[in-house]
């Protein structure tokens, strides 16, 4: 297996981009990444696109071909593949690129992630998100996506004494970070009182416990590690990836307060990277709901089970604290264009490890991690990144 490095990154503004189409934002992110990598279009061997539900959001399947075509790549006839896996699709697209380069199949690969969610109404968008859970045995009985995460939150509160305030502290922190990120959907701080006072979506999760619906795209250029310096002064190595799956329905899980897919994906990634959780300086974890971040930092072994809430409340996951978590603002504040999520998380880690994160820079960051979920944890992907010496 060859080493793999990231040599270019680019993303669009995240938010409600009424005036921009799926193909426009996809191309903008891709062109920025290619420029950043200083490669030519003819250098690209393949394209992987993470996209959760183009078919339902914009009535367009086969989006990998759409993006390649409008990026002007149709004449080069490169292989293009869309990757789907619920909310984890962007992270899975990155994993496919990693595997393609590591195996020697390709030398230079572009990974895109994009979702255009605001072309449908809020309720319809929420239903589309819920379709990553079990439609036959959850959704038809009234399960919504927030409801399933609320069920996890309630059990976590019951078993570990996690409080509503501790959940809220995740949202407050991530908005504080988002305020420092110029591409974030919400660049505004919020208070604990605002989170606690917001209308309930699915008790105990209120409006501010949920990541928003967003449009946005993100792209990354990867190449074989030994060729990275040719294109880039500060290549970032994608050291290892771990992927794991679990039951599609939440009710079939062994434990409602632990995502075994996260635990296993994390173990696999750390093992391959020959690193331990303590080595990580900065992490982007899947905070589609506030409870998700608390469970993720426990399941990735950054904190003991049950300590995710208290640690967050004490500020241990804030910028430049014990472990900087979701410095981009996370899904909560940066926004949640689903297909773009895993790619945007990786971009944040690249910026941190290049020391280009501006006001939200983690001092001396050497090792970074991304964690991305599909559904209610039926898929989990963990990538580990390191500054190349």
């Amino acid at each position: 297996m060859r080493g793999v490095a990231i040599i270019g990154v680019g993303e669009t503004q995240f938010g409600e981009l009424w005036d921009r189409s799926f193909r426009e934002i996809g191309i903008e992110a891709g062109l920025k990444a290619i420029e950043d990598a200083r490669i030519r279009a003819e250098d690209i061997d393949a394209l992987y696109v993470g996209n959760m539900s183009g078919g339902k959001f914009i009535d367009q399947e086969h989006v990998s071909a759409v993006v390649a075509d409008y990026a002007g790549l149709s004449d080069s006839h490169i292989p293009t593949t869309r990757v789907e896996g619920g909310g984890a699709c962007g992270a899975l697209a990155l994993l496919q690129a990693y595997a393609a380069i590591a195996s020697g199949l390709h030398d230079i690969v572009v990974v895109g992630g994009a979702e255009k969610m605001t072309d449908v109404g809020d309720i319809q968008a929420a239903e589309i998100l819920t379709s990553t859970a079990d439609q036959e045995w959850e959704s038809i009985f009234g399960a919504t996506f927030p409801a399933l995460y609320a069920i996890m939150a309630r059990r976590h509160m019951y078993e570990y004494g996690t409080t509503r305030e501790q959940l809220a502290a995740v949202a407050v922190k991530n908005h504080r970070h988002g305020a420092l990120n110029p591409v974030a959907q919400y660049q505004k701080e919020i208070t604990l009182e605002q989170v606690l006072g917001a209308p309930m979506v699915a008790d105990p999760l209120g409006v501010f416990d949920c990541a928003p619906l967003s449009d946005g795209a993100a792209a990354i250029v990867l190449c074989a590690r030994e060729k990275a310096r040719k294109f880039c002064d500060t290549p970032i190595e994608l050291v290892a990836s771990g992927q794991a799956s679990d039951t599609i329905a939440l009710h079939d899980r062994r434990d409602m307060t632990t995502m075994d897919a996260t635990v296993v994906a994390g173990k696999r990634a750390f093992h391959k990277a020959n690193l331990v959780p303590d080595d990580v300086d900065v992490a982007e974890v899947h905070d589609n709901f506030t409870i998700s971040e608390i469970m993720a930092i426990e399941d990735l072994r950054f904190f003991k089970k049950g300590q995710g809430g208290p640690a967050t409340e004490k500020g241990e996951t804030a910028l430049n604290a014990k472990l900087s978590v979701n410095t981009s603002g996370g899904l909560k504040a940066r926004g949640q264009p689903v297909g773009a999520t895993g790619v945007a998380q990786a971009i944040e880690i690249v910026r941190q490890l290049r020391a280009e994160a501006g006001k939200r820079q983690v001092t001396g960051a050497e090792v970074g991690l991304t964690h991305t979920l599909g559904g209610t944890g039926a898929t989990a992907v963990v990538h580990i990144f390191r500054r190349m010496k």
Partner: protein
Amino acid sequence: MATPRFWREIPSRYNLLGTRCGSCGTIDFPPRSICPQCGRKSLGKMTKLKLKGKGSVISYTVVHEAPSQFDLMKPYVLAVVQLEEGARLTTQIIDVEPGEVKIGMPVEVTFRRLGQEGEAGVIQYGYKFRPVRD
């Protein structure tokens, strides 16, 4: 959900039909053709079994925002229930004030309207659970 898609699962949605693995005895709901514990050993040994519909609440939420077909039910309680036979399912808890639902609460199955297909489509029925009253 399209009519045939709902109709195919009626035995389980009306009558809690699950399966028992002839190899290890584990009971699953909804029915499975392969036991997650035994894998290939269970092939051809999964037998249908009607579950009693008694269980307790593992966790729950009160849903305030939901798709339009659930509008008239809001706010409603959605729970993961563990059945006495061991299998778990996701269901609404009804005939109770949302504030009275607790983890560990004993519940029993009942038969209710779940929703309908589209604006004026076929009405879909199935299981919901309610507290066991003394």
